[in-house]
């Protein structure tokens, strides 16, 4: 562990961990839009900018994005210097011009004193801020169904050729991670659609709930080499089943049902 200061407050951090963690630990409030703890930092929204310096830099400081900058011993971090605040405002002002009707952006802008964008509001308002979380989560799972296409001002998130993405498994991870909830989808016991692709649902053989798409079950099975039937049973039933098996086993070994139940829960990390 190393020690650094954020806005004058001393905090401890793991060396090389994203500076943003230390900034948050120090209680400093800075907005972020492209960062997610399960994903590699990306540095696209530029809102997590901070000023960093060291005593030996003799007053010179540099602006860095804290989601990517590694925590170092003795670093002096300022999250609200004049230039940082000003730059953050320009970024939010620009985002508000892009997404004039998006509640999240409106709120963040307002928090930074911007009621109305000083730029040309997007004639075709969109909610997508191009934070890249959806494509990155999709890549992270290993599906690579959607990506950002086109450069520059024409950049957008889309499946290949703007058609229903052949690789999409309908897991909804993209829609769930999207900070502005702008990826439309529909899901019911019978069917799920996302990215204009329709999915057949798998019903849990035990409780009958449609909890997963067939494509998901196929994908997970193919990847983990576990029989597909394993993924067909929903998580809740699987837990129950496991608890049941354990209880039988441990009953023989002299344990109690309660304890083994807890054990099972701890493994899945769910309450």
């Amino acid at each position, binding site marked *: 562990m190393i020690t650094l200061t954020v806005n004058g407050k001393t905090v401890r951090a793991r060396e090389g961990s994203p500076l943003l963690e230390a900034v948050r630990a120090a209680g400093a409030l800075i907005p972020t839009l492209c960062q997610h703890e399960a994903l590699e930092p990306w540095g696209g929204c530029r809102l997590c*900018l901070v000023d960093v310096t060291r005593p030996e830099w003799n007053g010179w400081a540099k602006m860095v994005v804290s989601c990517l900058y590694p925590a170092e011993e003795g670093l002096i971090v300022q999250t609200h210097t004049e230039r940082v605040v000003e*730059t953050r405002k*320009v970024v939010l002002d620009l*985002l508000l011009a892009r997404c004039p009707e998006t509640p999240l952006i409106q709120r963040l802008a307002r928090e930074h004193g911007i009621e109305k964008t000083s730029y040309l509001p997007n004639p075709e308002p969109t909610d997508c801020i191009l934070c*890249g979380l959806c494509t990155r989560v999709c890549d992270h799972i290993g599906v690579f169904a959607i990506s950002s296409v086109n450069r520059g001002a024409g950049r957008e998130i889309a499946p290949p050729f703007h058609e229903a993405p052949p690789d999409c498994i309908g897991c909804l991870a993209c829609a769930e991670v999207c900070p502005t909830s702008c990826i439309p989808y529909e899901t019911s016991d019978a069917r799920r659609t996302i990215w204009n692709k329709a999915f057949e649902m798998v019903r849990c053989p035990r409780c009958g709930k449609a909890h997963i798409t067939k494509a998901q079950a196929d994908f997970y099975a193919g990847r983990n080499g576990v029989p597909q039937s394993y993924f067909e049973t929903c998580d809740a039933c699987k837990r129950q089943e496991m608890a049941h098996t354990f209880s039988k086993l441990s009953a023989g070994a002299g344990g109690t049902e309660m304890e083994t139940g807890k054990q099972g829960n701890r493994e899945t990390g769910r309450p």
Partner: protein
Amino acid sequence: MRIDSRERFDAAVSEALAGREGHKTEILVCCGTGCLANGSQKVAEAFAQEVEKRGLEAGVGLFTKKTGCHGFCEKGPLVVLQPSGVLYTKVEPRHVPDILDKTVAKGELIPRLLYKDPTTKKPVERYAEVPFYKNQTRIAMRNIGKIDPADLGDALAHGAYAGLAKALFGMTPEQVIAEVESSGLRGRGGAGFVTARKWKAARKAQGERKFLLCNGDEGDPGAFKDRSIMEGDPHSVLEGMVIGAYAVSAHEGYIYVRDEYPLAVVHLTLAMEQARQAGLLGRDILGTGFDFDICVSRGGGAFVCGESSALMRSLEGKTGEPRQKYVHATERGLFDCPTVLNNVETWADVGAIIQNGGAWFAAMGTERSKGTKAFSLVGKVKNTGLIELPMGTTLRHIIYDIGGGILGDRPFKAVQTGGPSGGCLPESHLDDPVDYEKLTEAGSMMGSGGMIVMDDRTCMVDVARYFLRFLVEESCGKCVPCREGLKQMLAIYDDLVAGRGRPGDIERIERLSAGMQLGSLCELGKSAPNPVLSTLRYFREEYLAHIEQKACPAGICRDLTAYEIVESCEGCGVCLKACPAEAIAGEKKALHVIHQGKCISCGACYEVCPTDAIRFFPKAELAPAAAASRGGAS
């Protein structure tokens, strides 16, 4: 023959030289991309055919060879005769028999093929006397135009790989780095980072694999120095890279070549093939046991792919987008291994530096910018093309002595240096010595050495808008300040040139620029405001005219400019024919008139009028009725 010792290297060079002694006359036909486009391949073939038909080669010792770009493409196809040094321009296949009969056989010159000095209007006989060449000092481009890039022997005869032999046979890696350090060499591809410092860091870095990369992406519109080097003297790049690899102890290299440069790929690949066979590349180089090999990789096709981290992503097979890492590539670059990336020209300098010594290189240039630099000189100058000059040469010398001055002897207005994210410098900076620091101080940059000269018929607001339009397409769009900022900046400029500028626009531009400079992820976004800020700095009154008077002082912005014909019109009718909108009427020998309702303000008439009888003025001054009938800008 594989060269595996100092003796064998010297023998190979002697042999290459001896092979050329029989050449009484060498006919050098430029076959760079520019001259090829003008038909030089046909000229080279015509020479070969004529020579063969006449059975000359054996008897007279005539030798035709296809060389790389001489840099003077606008006058191509170029033919140089050696050793006499006669230069012929715009040569066509039909001129070939004459050249052989007169110049080669009898030493007579053919006046109409000689280059005419645009200033003195006199023909210039020898290559070396052409002002465009006379004032140059060529190091990175030392052999371009002299050698046949497809012939290793020719390159060896002209000193190629002498630096490599010197390094591998007699210097430690540390000594090589020290030599490069004493030369003061800085990167020729952009930021001007000290080359030796990069190499030192990579040498020190721990890693099982290390990579050495050559940046041949050259995405700046109009730039072609790297292309000319890769096409015309690929060996200079290979030699530099092998020396660099030896210095930092790398064994794998890539040359990242812009996708639009197929000829460069062909020449590099051929040169690598020949170098491998000769023992100059690959395994056990020069018999010293040192291994280093290179792959040529075709670029991703975007300007931003030339940016260091994007280039490495692209080489890794991922999308060529910049990635911010707060660790140097020399520590963790390509595939997270220590990596040295240098520009084509930087690599081409290295061989000459080792061969001649760092002090030799450092004797040229200014205090902190040493050696020479290649520039692509284009725009409104009489001589355009590729040049190499000592650092510290003044802009005035480049534009007036080498470039021959402004086309049509119009007044100079500005020179844009450094590529799309460089800046525009006005007349008051013409005597600035060109070096990294001076250009940056003046609000521009060295960049890759682009130089666009502009005359008084240039609107600086429009120029800034032109670069913004390039950048808005080329920004990768990953980060908000660059992607959205450029879009919004362009929107402000679209308004300015259309007469919709508002008070406060200048402040909005400045504030947005600061946000982009401080907030953007990579140098593209950080430097994108340069064209904007430099034009604002030097031509602020032009911005004010657009905003306050809705006027374009240079008469370029169409929505703000009207034309009229004045008394001095002689009624020659030239303008009438030139007008694409049929807006001009008038009898022969009588005063012509522009119909304001039809005029589209293209300025074609203004350009062609032989008596300067056409005047432009702010459209805002038009009588309201006429302005309304145009339905133009409000």
